[in-house]
């Protein structure tokens, strides 16, 4: 993502994909894309493990992301090689306070993954529900929903998110707030996709047949249209997660995301910037983690979109 102007990548990509006649992946599978599933999957799984076991993993060396270790510093700069890398601090420590950097990265992955995944679920639920409604019933429902989508597409998301962070009382947990904001702004891409597919699918023989036989709209939507959409949705969601993770990090980088002392990669990056020449490892670890995780999801998404050929899925 060049700039975090869209929360979920859904807007740009969604609109482009929805307008394009060929839906995404190339027709046949290449070995490259198959290996990308494996590599991407492994990266993502590693980070999931890191997030789930952040506590025990940090505890191996007796660390947590809050405790200060002034003994690991020489003055205000980490002592020793690579920003204070040692047996007890695998990634070294932060300057000034000497907090264990591995713990920060590990706990930070919880925030990144958690917000990425849960906001996707919210977007998915809203997007699918509204997309199905608009595509199946058309008419007024479609007009209303489509106009709402236009509002969201034209909405300066980043500014809105910044403003919200100021308005919402600080007693409201930031991770939840970011999840809700990203979830709430990430649905139009999915809704547009679902609407388009539903429009096509509901004219297909099997759907028409069901309706003729007296099936309720809910039955048709749930049993016939939704299953056909699943592969597309999985790919779309997987590919939207990097955007969400990037958006959280970007907001935290700008100082309007996660508040200290909660570890967040984006905030660590912004803290580390001024130390870059003195202690480059401080920037490298959280920055590298952020890049690697988004890279993993993108690889996985690419591979999946090829493996589950959307057109094939639709025809089944």
């Amino acid at each position: 993502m060049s700039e975090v102007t869209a929360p979920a990548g859904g807007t740009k990509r969604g609109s482009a994909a929805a307008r394009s006649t060929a839906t995404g992946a190339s027709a046949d599978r290449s070995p490259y894309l198959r290996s990308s599933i494996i590599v991407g999957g492994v990266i993502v799984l590693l980070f999931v493990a890191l997030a789930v076991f952040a506590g025990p993993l940090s505890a191996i060396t007796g660390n947590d992301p809050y405790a200060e270790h002034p003994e690991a510093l020489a003055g205000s700069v980490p002592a020793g090689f690579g920003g204070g890398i040692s047996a007890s601090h695998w990634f070294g420590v932060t300057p000034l306070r000497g907090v264990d950097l591995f713990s920060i990265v590990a706990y930070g992955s919880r925030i990144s993954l958690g917000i990425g995944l849960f906001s996707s679920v919210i977007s998915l639920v809203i997007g699918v529900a509204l997309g199905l409604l608009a595509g199946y019933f058309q008419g007024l429902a479609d007009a209303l929903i489509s106009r709402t989508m236009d509002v969201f597409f034209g909405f300066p998301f980043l500014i809105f998110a910044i403003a919200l962070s100021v308005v919402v009382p600080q007693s409201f947990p930031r991770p939840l707030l970011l999840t809700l904001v990203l979830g709430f702004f990430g649905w139009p891409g999915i809704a547009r996709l679902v609407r388009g597919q539903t429009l096509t699918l509901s004219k297909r023989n099997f759907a028409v047949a069901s309706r003729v036989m007296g099936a309720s709209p809910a039955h048709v939507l749930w049993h016939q249209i939704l299953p056909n959409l699943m592969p597309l949705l999985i790919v779309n969601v997987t590919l939207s997660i990097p955007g969400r993770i990037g958006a959280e990090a970007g907001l935290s980088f700008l100082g309007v995301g996660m508040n200290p002392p909660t570890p967040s990669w984006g905030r660590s990056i912004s803290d580390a910037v001024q130390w870059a020449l003195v202690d480059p490892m401080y920037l490298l670890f959280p920055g590298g983690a952020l890049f690697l995780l988004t890279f993993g999801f993108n690889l996985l998404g690419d591979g999946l979109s090829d493996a589950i050929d959307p057109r094939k899925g639709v025809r089944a």
Partner: protein
Amino acid sequence: MTNKHVVRAAIAGVCAAVLALSGCGASNNTANGTANGQSTGATGGTLNVLLSSTEMDLDPAKSQGLPITTNGNIFRRLTAWKITQGGETKVVPDLATTTGEPSDDGKTWTYTLKDGIKFDDGTTITSKDIKYGLERSFADSLTGGLSYHKTLLVGAQDYHGPFDGKHLDSIETPDDKTIVFHLNAPFGDWPWVASLAAFTPVPEGKGPASGYGKTPVASGPYKVESNEAGKQAVYVRNKYWDKKTDPVRTAGPDKIVFKMSQDTSVAAQSIMQGTGEGKNSFLSGFVPPAQLAQAQANPAYQKLLATSGDGALEYLAINTKRVTDLKVRQAIEYAVDKKAYQTASGGEIAGNFATTLITPGIAGREKYDLYKADSTGDVDKAKQLLKEAGQTSPNLKLIATSDQAETASSIQTSLKRAGITVDIQTLNDDVFSDAETNNEGDYDLVIGGWQPDFPSPYANISPLFDSSQIGNGNYNLARYSNPEVDALIKKATETIDQSEAGKIWAETDKKIMADAPVVPLIYSKNTFIHGSNVTNFVIGNFPAYPDYNQVTLASAN
């Protein structure tokens, strides 16, 4: 947004908007000061001042700036600050011949203007220009500046500025050389007030209700050649300025360029490396921690640093409206680990331990310590006091900005030792400054910092402890209200004899601390960095900022 370099200044919540420019923040003199301080610089060359702020509004009516920073070189006022390296800062006559003649028990102040003082277009500055400048500051469109004079001048409450042809009668200009102020109460510090930006002369008819701040008419040794938001402001010589009339400005460089929207880390880096303009530049803000560490480790860079002496008071305010038991507050006085706070602020270079409210370098200060303990605190005494109060494990809410995360957690840890649980609530900067100064006061503890606007105990004590300064955007953060203290403040303020006033202030200081509304933590020091060719980088005992009026280049480039 708050960058790391404004950390300390942001703590001094006072200064939110005008930070780097005004030089409002924390503290003052230098380790290597004499080397830099007293040498004679060259005349000529271009001096660069690197600012992180994105615009420079130079309208004197709206300025909260110190008289010795950005606008010191273009605006003269009735009085000025005479700053010497490590010495006491004195108020001296600038446009006027004296610092003010009081009469009517200090309710009337009279000034006579010097001969040979001119604007940058060559016209002579008259007392009417000063009156007009002051009147402008009452206009509804020109609010936001320091407003000490607004509460003091008779009839000012109902005055809305000169743009409708109305004038403020409590400022009299019997002739072009004389200006008389009528105050509603005696005010011994008026000579200091007369040094603030609102007392800058503005030629009548040339200072519109908006837009004057870009290139205002100058009266100092420089005039504003250009001022482009986000880029730079250029000061060039004002040929009508006469050095003989000016006791404080040395006007060394031919040109001063203020470069705006600079990244502090990058700017500090370029100054250290000394490449290009770096050696002829100085950073207006504090040196960020990373560059500070870098410079301290390298002897060549170390001599570019200038650290002030004891400056702004950083303190832990205890909301006396909520923590009503004196014993509990006293327990907090003992429980706080000032050493840990100092470490979290960056170590010894961040400042010395504080015990008094009036800061070092201000006339009238008496050193004392009501709550004697090690710098790490006296946990046993704190526990005992809590026991006496019958509250062995109080639960308190500390509000903090994200920049205070580290210092706040050090307070949390140190109070924990005495059994006091502190919940830290991190707030966004603007929400924070509202939360600490609004009328509700929904907090038990808050870390504050206060750099007085002028070096007088009045500016130190009154804004923080007078009961009229609770809420409404004011900084009595402890919400401290004691009629006896109010009376003492009033008495000291109205005492014209300054040594007499000083005694009353010292008494007030102790009286307040006996009620333990705040825990003095440290007198913060500011560290600045300047290029190798920059000299006369003088930081006096007050304020903890370099005197821009004296900075010169060692050799003209």
